[in-house]
């Protein structure tokens, strides 16, 4: 079996995790990289916790084994911590800065700082990204998913599997308002 890059996408239903996975899958196809994406649909989408497994390269099975994820992109710190065990020791986690509190009466969630500390203590490398804020500032409030991908790609973790041109081609193919999203993606690449 050849190389596999295991990417964990985590967040809250409605944040665009599944669309992001679709962008990545189409980018992989554009590049000629094999890809398997296992999604969460249905009940969990009503504001529930969402995880999507993306496996780039020579993967057969749809799910990433526990402890073998290479990269995480999380649009919520709590969800990053919830699925951290899918990652390898030392893996890189790109984590959104803003906590989306679970809408349960009387629940006070931990802060981003607390979560990040726990992730680092558990052996992960964490990059906090203000994707929700930047997407809003750049006039595309629903684009935090794309921004996050740009921020992660900027550091070279996808080299050999995907490049920015593949992502842009995929955005054109599968997202609404592609120009807006490409602008956001480029901004993230530059700022990342």
């Amino acid at each position, binding site marked *: *079996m050849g190389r596999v890059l295991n990417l964990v996408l985590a967040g809250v239903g409605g944040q665009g995790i599944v669309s992001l996975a*679709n962008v990545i899958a189409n980018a992989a196809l554009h590049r000629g990289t094999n*890809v*398997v994406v296992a999604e969460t649909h*249905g009940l*969990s989408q009503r504001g529930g916790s969402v995880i999507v497994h993306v496996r780039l390269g020579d993967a057969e099975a749809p799910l990433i084994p*526990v402890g073998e994820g290479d990269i995480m992109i999380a649009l919520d710190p709590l969800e990053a911590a919830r699925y951290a065990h899918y990652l390898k020791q030392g893996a890189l986690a790109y984590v959104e800065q803003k906590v989306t509190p*679970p*809408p349960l009466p009387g629940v006070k*969630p931990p802060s981003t700082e607390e979560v990040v500390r726990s992730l680092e203590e558990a052996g992960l490398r964490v990059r906090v990204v203000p994707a929700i804020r930047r997407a809003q500032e750049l006039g595309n409030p629903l684009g935090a998913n794309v921004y996050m991908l740009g921020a992660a790609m900027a550091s070279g973790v996808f080299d050999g599997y995907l490049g920015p041109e593949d992502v842009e081609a995929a955005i054109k193919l599968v997202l609404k308002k592609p120009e807006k999203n490409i602008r956001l993606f480029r901004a993230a690449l530059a700022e990342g």
Partner: protein
Amino acid sequence: MKEVLAPPGSRVIMLGNVAIARGALEYGVAFASAYPGTPSTEITEALSYASRLLGAPYVEWSSNEKVALEGAIGAALAGVPAMASMKHVGVNVAADPLFSVGYMGVPASLVIVSADDPGMWSSQNEQDNRIYGIHAYIPVVEPAGAQEAKRAVIEAFKLSEKWGHPVILRSTTRIGHTRVPVETGEINLEGIKRKGKFEKNTERYTLVPAHARKLREELVEKWERIREDLASHPLNWVEGPEDAKLLVVGAGLGYRYAKEALARLGLEDKARLLKIGTPVPLPRKLIVEEASRADKIFVVEEGDPVVESQIKEALYDEKIIVDIHGKEKGPIRRTGELTLDNVTAGLARVAGVPYEAPQPPRPRISLPPRPPVLCAGCPYRAVFYALRRAVGKARVRPIYNGDIGCYSLGVNPPFQMQDTIVEMGGSIGLANGMSHTVEGQIPIAIIGDSTFFHAGLPGLANAVYNRAPMLVVVLDNRTTAMTGHQPHPGIGVTARGEPGYSIDIVDAARGLGVEYVKVIDAFNIKEGEEEFYKALEYVKKEGKPALVVARGACILLAIANARRMGVKYTVYTVDLDKCTACGLCYKAFNCPAIYPGDDGKARIDPLLCTGCGECAQICPFDAFHPVEEPPEEWLRIMRTAKPM
């Protein structure tokens, strides 16, 4: 969805379910029926998309799975290739015709897609529907992942055609909801437009005992011939060294896990891998041949040990004694879905090779759960709130018989108004039994509009007939929301986007003889409280069923309708001078768009607010106001929106 119509010869990213739809189109399915259910829904959504553009095949959302399968049987008897798709529990609803159709056989191919949900991502149980195949004498084809989904459905149709027998295509969540590159072939345009003709064959198509007895003899004999034939089926094959002592059997998606686990452990050259795409009836010849050379067998399959137990049966009959490992005695867990961790560790143990599972990062932090919740602006929040107040005012001790739909989420705090949830239609069904047996309590059946048409009608007829004192609350949100907003018989739009008849729930209830029927505006809490109160009083006094239809569109549907019509809704805001930080709105009402500021006073997230106006009705201090007067059009759409 557009990828379902990608030109032939292209390679496109598709969801497994869309690949199943594409496969059906390439084969030339002419009739496709379904009732929505995760993880099967996108098959029919993709077919409906294709049908709108191509003018064929005929696609329908049926009123329930039994009706869907009966329709597909009818189409197949009329001579056109047919398919009925449903989630695993839908097959329970369709089980009655399913057990008959094997006896009759079909003159054109008939495929029943069962989408099983191991891990219960969105279901009330885990059930392995390959067992239905054994029980009903219907062969089962199982794709090895989304990668093989398109090919498998085509093979399922071909198998059905070859034997004049129905075939089950068994998918699972990680097949239907996995996205992979798929190569497209030609869509069979002539096939999907085909019209049929029913040819009488009374001895075959009328299952009176005299006919059925003969057909049963034929069926049992045919079953063994099918089994033999399947030994050379193109979805079954073997890989790896012939002289290996370890035989790994990978059925369906289990094949992918087995293959990757073998690679991870460096065992590709030391084990034989038998890939099974037709788990039922298990081709004995294949397994006996391979097993006779092995001294250990390791079976990987999603769901129950269906292949494993058939292997054991086959080898027992042949007096072949080997160690068989799988799910019956481990090492693979019988509950939940397959994972590569579990399969790799199990394989290592069976093969006797070292394997050290990685030590994953385990952050030491306590995380609040994040269960799914009713959307901001969901009409159900207002209905639950009003109903609870009415129950208090009427001083009744309620039993909330819940049902399957978004309103199931009412099981969680703050409402906790779902005391039972069994299956679709179970709300009225259970209330029937309780209403005749409890003292001092009143059953309140809470049922959605789609569920009402699916399985609520017979229960309601029973309640009227047997005079069951209960309150039935029909949540008419104009759609089947939980599964992604499909239309239903109350809507008047078909799966192909054509006008259909819209059956009014009020007429249906009156027609069944319910004497007390009221319609309320789901978004109007005061009206709801009053009407629920009156209805409860009626039930108490008259000892008969009362029915209240709470009408108000699923807010997501309303927003989608409004967007299409160019109508904007108005968000709400908090007057901090009036807010007293009582917390009613974010605790007892628990709208996800409302959160407490550091001062405990309410704030509204304008990105989440949907302008439903419910908060303004519950706040005792009049602190919520729309930022501007809501347009009349929006208020109308909130009550009348429907799927397109």
